[in-house]
């Protein structure tokens, strides 16, 4: 029992030691920010102090917890999260599905890939006003649509690559087993595509939040982060705008970590997770 406890403490200390530089840098940057704002007497509307951003954040937490009150910040965060998440699921799901269908016929996937790659270089966000027009400016579907289109192409391209870039010997092995196409897909092509898919999902997780917030800059319901940021900024309430930016960052990082966690669960065998011993 004692050794187990001791080794647990040791690993905790190891981990703290491992993360210490990161934490130190974060704390250092925030401290420097606070000091610089005070020392150079930087105006609140240019750059608020971290302490006042945090104060505003705690104020919103209190509003959120108080019965009968509402926190627009947290409502906005929730709404934007769902737009990003919904768009992510639709876009990535669609990308994987289309990839699976097109890779079934090499000709189709070879014919569609150039278009997908071209579409991937288009600034999809420019379509935001069009989507507002199609789905309604206050309808979350207009933001989800933007997010879905943004994440669709990288997901599709990567999945097609993963499904088609299969080691020739591994395919020949399946051929020697007289394997059905279904077995080749399920037991070889899809597992082979997983790392490609997850690298797309990781990019998509960041893109989806950017897509949602920027799409909201073009207009949306009051309680969304993009609208919140633009409105508070134009009202010169920069502490509020910064709390919204902070919330967007937290959601983005959480989203990314969620994808990373899923990746580790679904493909623990992958090179990137191998540890010595």
């Amino acid at each position: 029992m004692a050794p187990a406890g001791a080794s647990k403490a040791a690993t905790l200390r190891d981990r703290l030691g491992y993360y210490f530089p990161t934490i130190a840098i974060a704390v250092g940057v925030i401290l420097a920010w606070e000091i610089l704002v005070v020392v150079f007497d930087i105006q609140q509307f240019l750059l608020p102090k971290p302490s006042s951003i945090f104060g505003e954040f705690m104020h919103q937490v209190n509003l959120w917890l108080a019965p009968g009150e509402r926190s627009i910040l947290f409502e906005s965060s929730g709404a934007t999260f769902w737009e990003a998440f919904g768009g992510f699921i639709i876009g990535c799901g669609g990308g994987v599905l289309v990839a699976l269908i097109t890779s079934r016929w090499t000709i189709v996937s070879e014919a569609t890939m150039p278009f997908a790659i071209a579409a991937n270089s288009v600034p999809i966000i420019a379509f935001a006003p069009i989507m507002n027009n199609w789905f309604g400016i206050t309808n979350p579907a207009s933001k989800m649509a933007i997010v879905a289109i943004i994440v669709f192409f990288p997901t599709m391209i990567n999945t097609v690559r993963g499904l088609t870039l299969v080691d020739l010997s591994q395919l020949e092995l399946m051929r020697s087993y007289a394997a059905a196409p279904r077995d080749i897909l399920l037991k070889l092509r899809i597992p082979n595509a997983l790392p490609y898919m997850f690298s797309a999902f990781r990019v998509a997780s960041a893109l989806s939040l950017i897509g949602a917030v920027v799409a909201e800059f073009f207009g949306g319901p009051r309680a969304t982060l993009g609208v919140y940021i633009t409105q508070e900024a134009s009202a010169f309430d920069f502490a509020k705008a910064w709390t919204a930016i902070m919330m967007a960052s937290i959601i983005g990082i959480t989203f990314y970590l969620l994808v990373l966690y899923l990746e580790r669960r679904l493909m623990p065998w992958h090179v990137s997770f191998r540890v010595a011993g």
Partner: protein
Amino acid sequence: MATASRDIAIAARGINKIFNPGSDEEVIALQDINLEVEAGEFISLIGPSGCGKSTLMRLVGDLLQPSSGELLVNGKSPQQSRLDREYGMVFQAATLYEWRSVTKNVQLPLEVMGYSSDERQLRAQAMLDMVELGAFANHFPWQLSGGMQQRVSIARALAFDPSVLLMDEPFGALDEFTRERMNLELLKIWDQTGKTIIFVTHSISEAVFLSNRIVVMSPRPGRITEIVENTLPYPRDFNTRSDPAYIQLVARVRDLLRDAIASDAAQDRGEA
């Protein structure tokens, strides 16, 4: 008639294989190949690169189709034999599926062929025990050495009890010491299972050590120069390599290969 066709595992008559026929890059990979392999025989195909030894193996395994000639495996077309799951294949790279554990890799062909879960586990364990990797069933391929990976690949090829084992330079990527150990293990497995083995290699000592007959091939066009009988008795072991008869055979095969390479070089000079 039935007995006659059972004795001959592989029969090739007048096989030609031409890649890109009619184009500038036309290559006569194999020309007029005639070969009969008895069931349970261990045959090595040896020759310099470009002699078509791998191509010949792939024709037998129905990974390629001959341009002309007749090829029968167990009295059937190679395609029919493949559909009947008569081929176990081992490549130079172990080609294990990295997302599968060792036992799951061995079970892969069994899954594809619809064996029950109990049967799969039983067979996989038996095969892994045979290649002396029983304790590594739940490891992942990257945790094993190259030689161990190749042993898993052999276990996988044998799991569904195919009648013919096709091996394409299976130990080519291993160091000399591991390779000699693998040779001994392969002979033991061959003895236990009685499979017909077609073994492609570019190592003379390996070919002589392992096989009943050595098919010496030469390039441009790929053809059989000579088929060398190897009457060294089995079981063969480390001492076999110091047997004068073995050394003589190695020298003989080397001479044959030297002729093949010399004529190839002459062609090079002629073309240049």
